[in-house]
């Protein structure tokens, strides 16, 4: 039996965590199909067909899938599910919304946020905000899995498979998509950025966050991240939050500025290759995971750093 990957896309093109999810699916050693459900999403479907290793793309085109409502998406997945041994989605806000519901419809539990695959039924996943790593074996008839993208490489776009149109339309009428409020930015996406400059409560205000963090990020071509305290204080929008309840990232370089390094923040960034911390408190927990630290006032250090690189 094949594995089915649920595509996260914006109708025109694929979202990058999907490529990591496809890699995880390919590691199961089975044919991999990708489901692209959307409205006029042939762009995304064509792109999925060009991902190396993918055997087949299923494309469902209907207004019912426009806002990726969990009720409709899960019903569609549940209908296809009996033909598959594994169903995978990225562990993003998209996958976390849809996949548990699909699993529930099939009477299965979900294996959430996997970071490793030991065999076709045994998976590795972090628990307790990454303070413990569990190896779990599932006896569910279909394995529903969300995949942590930072733990798997991106699949390459060197394939060519067929796109099969499927006619199933699942419109539950239980919910209605009203609007998305998307934060506009010209910066690289947090999930793909090689460098992330991240700020915390120590930035003191939205204005200072902007004048201190942005120039450094501009100079490095970096994405901007934040602690929950910074987001809650309104220094920056919620899509920038990194951690247990935000995004999980693992860039080449993570620069943590004026954030203490609470367990819940570390859960989202401690797999970064190189970590730099700027904090006035030498005992801040962020220094325990930082490769390079500078103890001092960020309002002096960061502008100096921006100038020096």
């Amino acid at each position, binding site marked *: 039996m094949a594995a089915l990957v649920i595509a996260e896309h914006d109708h025109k093109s694929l979202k990058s965590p999907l490529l990591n999810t496809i890699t995880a699916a390919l590691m199961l050693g089975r044919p991999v199909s990708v489901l692209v459900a959307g409205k006029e999403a042939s762009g995304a479907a064509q792109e999925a067909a060009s991902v190396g290793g993918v055997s087949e793309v299923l494309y469902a085109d209907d207004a019912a899938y426009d*806002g990726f*409502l*969990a009720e409709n998406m*899960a019903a569609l997945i549940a209908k296809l599910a009996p033909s598959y041994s594994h169903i995978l989605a990225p562990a993003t806000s*998209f996958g*976390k*919304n*849809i996949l*548990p*519901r*699909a*699993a*529930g419809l099939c*009477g*299965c*539990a*979900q*294996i*959430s946020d996997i970071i490793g695959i030991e065999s076709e039924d045994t998976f590795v*996943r972090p*628990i*307790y905000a*990454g*303070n*413990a*790593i*569990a*190896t*779990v*074996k*599932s*006896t*569910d008839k279909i394995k529903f899995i969300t995949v942590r993208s930072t733990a798997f490489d991106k699949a390459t776009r060197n394939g060519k498979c067929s796109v099969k149109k499927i006619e199933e339309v699942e419109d539950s009428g239980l*919910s209605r*998509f*009203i*609007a*998305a*409020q*998307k*934060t506009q930015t010209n910066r690289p996406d947090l*999930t793909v950025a090689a460098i992330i400059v991240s700020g915390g409560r120590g930035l003191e205000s939205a204005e200072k966050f902007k004048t201190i963090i942005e120039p450094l990020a501009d100079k490095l071509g970096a994405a901007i991240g934040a602690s929950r305290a910074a987001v809650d204080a309104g220094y920056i929008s*919620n*899509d920038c939050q990194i951690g247990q*309840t935000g*995004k999980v990232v693992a860039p*080449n*370089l993570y620069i943590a500025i004026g954030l203490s390094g609470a367990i819940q923040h570390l859960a989202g960034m401690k797999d970064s*290759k*190189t*970590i*730099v911390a700027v904090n006035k408190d030498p005992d801040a927990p962020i*220094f325990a995971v*930082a490769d*390079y*630290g*500078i103890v001092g006032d960020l309002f002096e250090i960061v502008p100096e*750093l921006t100038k*020096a*690189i």
Partner: protein
Amino acid sequence: MKILVTVKRVIDYNVNIRVKTDNSGVETANVKMAMNPFDENAVEEAVRLKEKGVATEIVVTTIDAPVAQETLRAALALGCDRAILVSSEKDVQPLGVVGALKKIVEKETPELIIMGKQAIDQEGGQVGGLLAAQLGWAQGAAVSKIEISGDKAKVIRETDEGQETLELKLPAVITADLRLNAPRFASLPNIMKAKKKPIEVIPIAEMGGDVCPTIQILKVTPPPMRKRGVVVPDVATLVNKLKNEAKAI
């Protein structure tokens, strides 16, 4: 309308987690326990809806060992009206929790269920979605705003791109994000009053039992440790190290 709120007793989020040396799990003996933070948001929202006159009764439930009565008591002190403990000496897995919750829903017929978006121990983030699916109800996951009008709920969900607004038909299952509200602390008089509020205890065997667990934990290990790095004296040294040692810029 009647609201059902679910809570889970977990290791307090401030506690440093220690993995047991035999790799069977994490140390829970003599460790501070607390209500799952997202469930505090769920309780708070239910209480606010009651204060606004939208909700008429709040039933809180947990599926756990009898010690979890303390967590239910805490929820009663925050404003829930009554509690149901589905008691089980064994750990109950998500599908078992959902099985018991379905029975409670049959019995209590709530119009809204508010839960946490994830439990900070096992971090499944799935019970809400599983339950909504099995009830055939609408769902709002990771919600930061709820507005009830008539037989609809308008919710704002936190997403990776920002937010999105959905309209859900009631009855519905909503899971709380931390940004849903700022939970209150229980006042002393309310803690005293909560002692008199009823907690019904039902053995899990009477609730369909723990439907055959499908997930087996083979081992639990500590995460790989990062090596503590160095503190550098100045920006020039940092830039030099980033360029020549880490080759990160």
